[in-house]
């Protein structure tokens, strides 16, 4: 079936872009993964509207866009609660809804979390660039013409499938993440934790940090206690690969949590956020309090397994 035009951007909000689960396999060329910062929210949003978990959605933050439906469809909003509206009337998050042609999806204001994910039945249709539909914003490729969305942009669906009986699907409220202003991120030490004295490692685990407003999709910058490396050690290390969740300590000693727009870095990394907690990185907002607690690799894998089990059980409940 020919894919139809499905969304018109009436107002783009703060930063709205097309993202899927990211671009992998091109790191050797310096190409970062990009992709949804809260992959959990994106996967659930897709399932709610009958898509594959990895299809492209709109990622928005803080304000949320104002969008007109160009055809009847099913829409779900997940992630941070920006208070979605259909024609001005509140609709529930983490649930799919029927939208008629010319209906308007808008957002009131941020209630909790930071980033919302908007899924439409059929997925957002943009060309695959290096096997992904994600927008690489710093380098300007992928997604919709390599940029954030603007007023007047028209988006097509990847495939036309408006089975409105899908509407009404909802994530069990017990499984809906609760976002607060205080976060404890679980980390695994390393790879350069041995460049720091015990005193600094203790401080890293006991300190309370605040997310700086200078943060962006490249990294979450933290304000708070300065982490000193061992004496007589150079400020930077030889550049090497980094992952989403790497916690760098630059020369000023203020930690930076690397997000998905970087493949290499020249600052030492004291610890790495565990995979199960990576979706939270998309929901922390400037001013929020962040603490770190070290866990074992085993505990980390158990947490990841639990998160994956939840998604699998939800997926199975839909087909059952």
């Amino acid at each position, binding site marked *: 079936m020919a894919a139809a035009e499905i969304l018109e951007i009436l107002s783009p909000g703060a930063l709205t872009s097309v993202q899927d689960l990211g671009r992998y396999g091109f*790191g050797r060329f310096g190409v970062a993964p990009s992709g949804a910062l809260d992959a959990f929210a994106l996967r659930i949003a897709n399932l709610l509207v009958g898509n594959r978990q990895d299809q492209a959605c709109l990622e928005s933050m803080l304000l949320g866009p104002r969008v007109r439906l160009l055809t009847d469809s099913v829409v779900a909003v997940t992630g941070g609660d920006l208070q979605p509206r259909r024609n001005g009337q509140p609709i529930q998050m983490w649930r799919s809804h029927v939208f008629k042609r010319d209906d308007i999806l808008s957002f009131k204001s941020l209630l909790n979390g930071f980033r919302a994910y908007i899924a439409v039945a059929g997925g957002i249709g943009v060309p695959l*660039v*290096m096997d992904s539909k994600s927008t690489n914003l*710093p*380098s300007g490729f*992928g997604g919709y013409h390599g940029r954030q969305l603007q007023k007047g942009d028209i988006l097509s669906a990847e495939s036309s499938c408006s089975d409105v009986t899908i509407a009404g699907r909802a994530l069990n409220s017990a499984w809906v993440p609760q976002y607060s202003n205080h976060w404890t991120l679980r980390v695994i030490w390393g*790879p350069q934790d041995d460049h720091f004295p015990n005193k600094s490692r203790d401080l890293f685990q006991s300190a309370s940090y605040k997310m700086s407003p200078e943060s962006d999709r490249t990294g979450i910058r933290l304000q708070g206690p300065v982490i000193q490396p061992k004496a007589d050690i150079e400020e930077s290390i030889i550049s*090497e690969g980094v*992952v989403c969740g790497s916690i760098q300590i630059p020369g000023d000693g203020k930690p930076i949590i690397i997000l998905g727009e970087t493949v290499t870095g020249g600052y030492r990394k004291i610890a790495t956020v565990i995979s199960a907690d990576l979706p939270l990185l998309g929901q922390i907002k400037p001013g929020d309090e962040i603490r770190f607690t070290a866990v074992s690799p085993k505990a980390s894998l158990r947490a990841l397994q639990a998160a994956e089990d939840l998604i699998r059980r939800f997926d199975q409940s839909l087909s059952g």
Partner: protein
Amino acid sequence: MGDRSLLVELGDEIGPAVNQSVQELFTGLDFQKPKGILELVPSYRSLLVICDPFILSLADLKLIIIEIHNNLDRSQLPEPRTAKIPVVYGGNYGPDLLEVAEYHHIAPEKVISYHTQPTYRVYMIGFTPGYPYLGELPDALSTPRRKTPRTLVPRGSVGIAQKQTGIYSVDSPGGWQIIGWTPIPLFDPQRNPPSLLVMGDRVEFYSITAEEADQWQPQRF
């Protein structure tokens, strides 16, 4: 590093021997393509391997890496390709050329002749898509980074910092001393591969005029 990647360190210095070991392990793993590996990022002295821990555990990945490392056949590395990169030096194309010349108390022409002299090794691609870290710069040109990085360095700009030289592959912020500009595109997301250069390639620079740059026809080597 974390719960789904290994950072394999093969030395602790910048040099061709260590970098070649990284390239060999990278090539070996890439050739064998064990199931579950999502990403390989080779750099100066280490190889980052990201995997899906439910398909390939880090313990098993470690065994595979040791196995490959112990059975490396140096002759398997491809003959390095050499890219000849034309550069317009100085003026608006290389706004820091004069400063670099002054820093070393040499004539700007001397900076150009030093920079075009070596055959550089591509130690790694990183920072931005397609950005090559090239070494080593002649000692006579080793220059510190700018005190205040520029917020926008145009793509194609050729920079130097300490013992390295590189080419800005996309418009980005940057702190290297910009001595020239090349009309050759280093990165094109629609191309396969998207990066002109890969780790292990060789690069030679040669000087062209601004008029020659204007007429440049993009081509690959």
